[in-house]
């Protein structure tokens, strides 16, 4: 079960046009992600980590190549089909939490459920479960401004998992947190991987954070490179 392929990237190229110049970030990138993987991606700033994550999440499209998810080529999807696909399969966790400031924790967690065909009580149950999992059930009625950074990130994790996605994409999830809080967050992510069999891809530049992953890839100049020594 664990070595079943979830994602397959085939000959991915990505370039941006800046003025008259074309900047290439990836050239013929190939990789695959198995179900149940906890993958850490490291690399210098500007190496394309976020761009890669965005492509995996269907927010950004490769210039060339195929992105296969469970055998389906999602790079061929229309914009609205891709949105539906994200709602069904992907959970996003950002560095700066990106919660809606006017909504309570519970209402923030509810957002992805609005995209599902669920009634109010079904949604309520899912929200409770998700908040309990991140240990924030007693903060359900608080708005983000009333929560600490770590608590906000836990709300964001609850939002990412509430609709039970297949894969969680985390872009420097602990980048804005102190060590102690970062450990709390990483432990939750690890729990999601080990206990709930979620596939995780986490971008980080913190080697301590990468240790929580089962595998670490190093990205440099648009390519995966072997690291001589894990620091």
């Amino acid at each position, binding site marked *: 079960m664990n070595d079943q392929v979830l994602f397959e990237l085939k000959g991915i190229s990505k370039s941006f046009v800046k003025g008259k110049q074309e900047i290439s970030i990836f050239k013929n990138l190939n990789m695959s992600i198995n179900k149940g993987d906890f993958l850490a991606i490291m690399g210098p700033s500007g190496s394309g980590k976020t761009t890669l994550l965005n492509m995996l999440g269907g927010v950004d499209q490769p210039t060339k190549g195929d992105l296969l998810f469970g055998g389906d080529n999602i790079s061929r999807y229309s*914009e609205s089909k891709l949105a539906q696909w994200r709602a069904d399969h992907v959970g996003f966790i950002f560095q700066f939490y990106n919660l809606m400031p006017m909504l309570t924790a519970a209402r923030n967690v509810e957002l992805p459920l609005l995209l599902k065909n669920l009634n109010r009580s079904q949604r309520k149950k899912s929200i409770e479960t998700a908040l309990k999992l991140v240990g924030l059930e007693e903060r359900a009625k608080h708005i983000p401004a009333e929560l600490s950074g770590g608590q906000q990130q836990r709300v964001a994790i609850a939002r990412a998992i509430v609709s039970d996605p297949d894969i969680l994409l985390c872009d420097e999830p602990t980048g804005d947190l102190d060590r102690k809080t970062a450990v709390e967050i990483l432990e939750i992510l690890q729990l999601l991987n080990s206990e709930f069999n979620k596939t995780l891809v986490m971008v980080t530049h913190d080697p301590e954070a990468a240790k929580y992953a089962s595998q670490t890839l190093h990205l440099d100049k648009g390519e995966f490179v072997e690291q001589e020594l894990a620091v």
Partner: protein
Amino acid sequence: MKDLYLIYKNLTRNKLRLFLTCFAIFIAFFLYGLLGALKGAFDAGIELSADDRLIVVNKINFTQPLPLAYFNKVKAIEGVKDVSHANWFGAYFQDQRRPMVGMAVDPETYLQVYSELQLDEASLQRWFNDRQGMIVGEAMATTYGWKVGDRVPISSNIFSQADGSHTWDMVVSGIFTAEDKQLDTNYLLFHYKYFIETQTFGSDWIGWMVLTTDDPALNEQVAKAIDALFANSSSETETSTEKAFNKAFIEQIGSIGFILTSVVMAAFFTILLIVGNAMFLAIRERTREIAVMKTLGFTATRVFRLVLSESILLSLLGGLSGILVAYYTLEAVTSIPQIRSILPNLLLSKEIFLQALAYMLGLGLITGFVPAFRAMRLNTVQALTRG
């Protein structure tokens, strides 16, 4: 709609801005309601007068009398359907400073010509059979608190009886209403016979005639025939449609309509700018949040709908409260009898309300479209990395 809470929260997140924007919309629609009702009150007399009714007055001046004999002559003219006559009474009740509209008419023919007046059969019979009977419009009956069977002395500031008295005893036979609420019912009608036999001005004369034709297309022809019939007589006539007659009467205040329309249009364009600007800023501030929502899986069209719904809700919130307050203001103003006697039709009609509603929706759509379109087309990746 599951997104309603989200829309509501977005709308109310900046309370001060919401209040200021809403207030601007409120003022505009409050004015719209008031001015619309005022314009409606001025126009009502013209708009509601049937176009196929002709009115025959003395050519010298419409206050000059006509001989009663003209009545039967007009009745005989080809194309004339129903014809009736009326005399202006210059009525008032107890207080001479409060004139009211009262006319001495021939009951049966008058109700034939003014078929829009509604009166139950019992009242009708009472009136026909009681020489001193009068029928009172609902608006007037309410103002003076009159009920069927009340004996009421009605005075005239023009005519007197043989004993020098200016006051006639009358009995309320019935209270009439009009099919259309805007129709003026602020007047009373009583028997021509009672009037002509008791006043001292002269006998066998009438104030004017009013008639309907078999077909409105015949109006011009019939009008010419009537005026031709009495040409070169001692009392020449002038026949025109009731609408034209009323219009000439109200022409002096006619340009008020234009001024009102201009004011309303200016107010509308002002709030268009205010609300448009507010919506634009509100959505621009939320660029990152919109990008996050799209990342979570909200489709472009759903985001478009969210923003547009918000601006429509904003317009409705300010607009409906403005119209509501205008409505109650008008209710309060028209409860003053003096104002009601000058402007009997001063009310916020369903038509004005529906027009205002259309303007609210228009405002919401116009002010929301650009921000909604921008939100829909927002590049998620750029918006997320930039912020």
